[in-house]
């Protein structure tokens, strides 16, 4: 249905007065793939998206689609579909007129327009709502209309600007799966902006983590989560224990007075930060035997969160946050229990302090 286009950004920079919103961002999005731009608010991710759409003129850099430079084109000449956080439906037009707007702008004849609008509404499971006004729809339905409106013009690129963040948790889960299915079916090159790390990891082929106008790391979700290049990235994509340590040799650190192996990847000897995700700390019987690091400590806090049990464990000078899957037959610990806590050395990632 859609042609899969390649999107390339080279050194895209945007200044607002003296403030640098985007600082030399270069990206390649492969045809038909979905890139997630993840970052805290103010990191520049939305500005990048708006620059791609042409709504924000860039200060420097180029944006190309399938090798064609579109940097100087106005938004209405870019052939790019954009879905907004606040839906941005035309309140004075019916659902069908909203979805048909882009086709009308392209001079598509009324009969064909009707067919394609009906197809697009069927794709987002809203057949039969053609005559409604946007205000008569729920938030989830409005966002589906917005998606249909962006897709019906068969854009070369689809941009999604936090499309799920105004919806409640249940609806978000549902629409997340649906958007991904549609994107994969149409094989449409997509950029998805979000501040929700679970959303980015779950939906996208490639995730770029942005910070202060730059891309801090870009790669497949598992790589971002398992091998973050900095503490900022590691903290942003999931919960983290962070302890001061000292690198004594490549692959070896001193932590709370004890030497142990760890993933130091090029961090120089001296003061550093050792980090590990709470669910990679294994308590007592849950830990397989083997050459694992381990500490012994006392449980100070237990929180049961349904499918997960969160523990705080005090071991020497270390405060450990541990998360255990509340599996059916897992033993559970109580406050005051003395437990042994183990982990695989290469789950302990070290960053410069």
């Amino acid at each position, binding site marked *: 249905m859609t042609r899969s286009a390649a999107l390339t950004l080279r050194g895209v920079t945007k200044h607002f007065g003296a403030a640098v919103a985007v600082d030399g961002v270069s990206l390649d999005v492969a045809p038909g793939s979905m890139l997630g731009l993840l970052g805290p608010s103010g990191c520049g991710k939305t500005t990048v998206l708006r620059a791609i759409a042409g709504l924000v003129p860039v200060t420097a850099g180029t944006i190309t689609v399938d090798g064609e430079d579109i940097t100087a084109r106005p938004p209405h000449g870019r052939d790019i579909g954009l879905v907004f956080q606040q839906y941005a439906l*035309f309140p004075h037009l019916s659902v069908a007129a909203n979805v048909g707007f882009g086709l009308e702008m392209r001079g598509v004849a009324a009969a064909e327009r009707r067919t394609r609008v009906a197809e697009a509404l069927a794709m987002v499971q809203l057949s039969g709502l053609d005559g409604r006004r946007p205000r008569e729809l729920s938030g989830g339905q409005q966002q589906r209309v*917005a998606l249909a409106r962006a897709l019906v013009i068969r854009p070369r690129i689809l941009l999604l600007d936090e499309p799920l963040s105004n919806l409640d948790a249940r609806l978000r889960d549902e629409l997340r799966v649906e958007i991904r299915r549609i994107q994969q079916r149409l094989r449409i090159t997509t950029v998805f902006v979000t501040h929700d790390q679970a959303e980015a990891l779950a939906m996208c082929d490639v995730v770029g983590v942005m910070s202060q106008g730059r891309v801090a790391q870009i790669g497949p979700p598992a790589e971002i989560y398992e091998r973050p290049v900095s503490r900022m990235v590691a903290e942003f994509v999931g919960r983290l224990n962070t302890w001061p340590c000292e690198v004594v040799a490549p692959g070896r650190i001193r932590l709370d007075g004890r030497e142990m192996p760890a993933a130091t990847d090029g961090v120089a000897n001296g003061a550093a930060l050792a980090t590990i995700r709470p669910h990679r700390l294994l308590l007592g019987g849950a830990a397989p035997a083997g050459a694992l690091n381990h500490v012994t400590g006392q449980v100070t806090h237990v929180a049961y969160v349904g499918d997960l049990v969160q523990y705080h464990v005090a071991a020497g000078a270390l405060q450990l946050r541990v998360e255990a899957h509340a599996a059916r037959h897992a033993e559970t610990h109580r406050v005051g229990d003395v437990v042994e806590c183990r982990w695989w050395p290469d789950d302990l990632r070290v960053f410069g302090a």
Partner: protein
Amino acid sequence: MVGTSRYGAGAVVVALYLFLLAPIAIVLPLSFSGDSYLSFPPASWSLRWYVALLSHDGLTGAFKVSVALASVVTALALLCGTTAAYALARGTFRGRDALLALFTAPLLLPSVILGLALLLTFSSWGLLGTYPGVVLAHLVLCTPYVVRIMTTALATLPPGVEDAAATLGAAPGVVFRRVTLPLLLPAVTASAVLSFLISFDEVVVSLFVTGPRLVTLPVEIFNYVDTRTDPLIAAVSVVLVAGTLAGVVLIERAVGLRRAVGG
């Protein structure tokens, strides 16, 4: 805090306001009086004063003058005010906030001051006592309201709709015509009605700028009241209140009363 004290306060309010608004309620029966003089309640009932109103050349003539003036002023105020509001809302030029403050300043300036200032200026420009002078004076009064309503309307446009239209392939002119303007229509209506009412009702500034030469309806009513007070005046009031109410209902339908009046 407690239910009873709330009801007590409510009662106080009702009493207070019935008292303050009673004048308006009294005018209606007076206008249907059959008497030759003002008395409340009237001794007899009739429509004679409405008939008298229609055949009073001074008042009907003044009415036409006022309607013509208010129409011209409203058209010009809409043009200037909407342009200004659009520039202010969309522009990012320096001094934008200062300009907006400047625009709303006449809203707070007492009309006596405006009248004086216009009197002094117009006397050097040779506009004193001329029709363009009156129109210009009314424009100074009405435009700030238009600017305010339109600025608010532009600021409260649903976020992103104009951008959405652009990404869907609409050129700037098309975006304005197909998206922006339809969404602004209620505010345009409200501005027009308010502008018309203000110009129609204006007395002080007009008196300063033209003296009693341009006989608008308020001036003629003044003159009438100066010589006698009879139920004809009540009939005039009812007609004006009805007209104003119709305008207010229009504004209310269009943008909601509170947003137009402010608050």
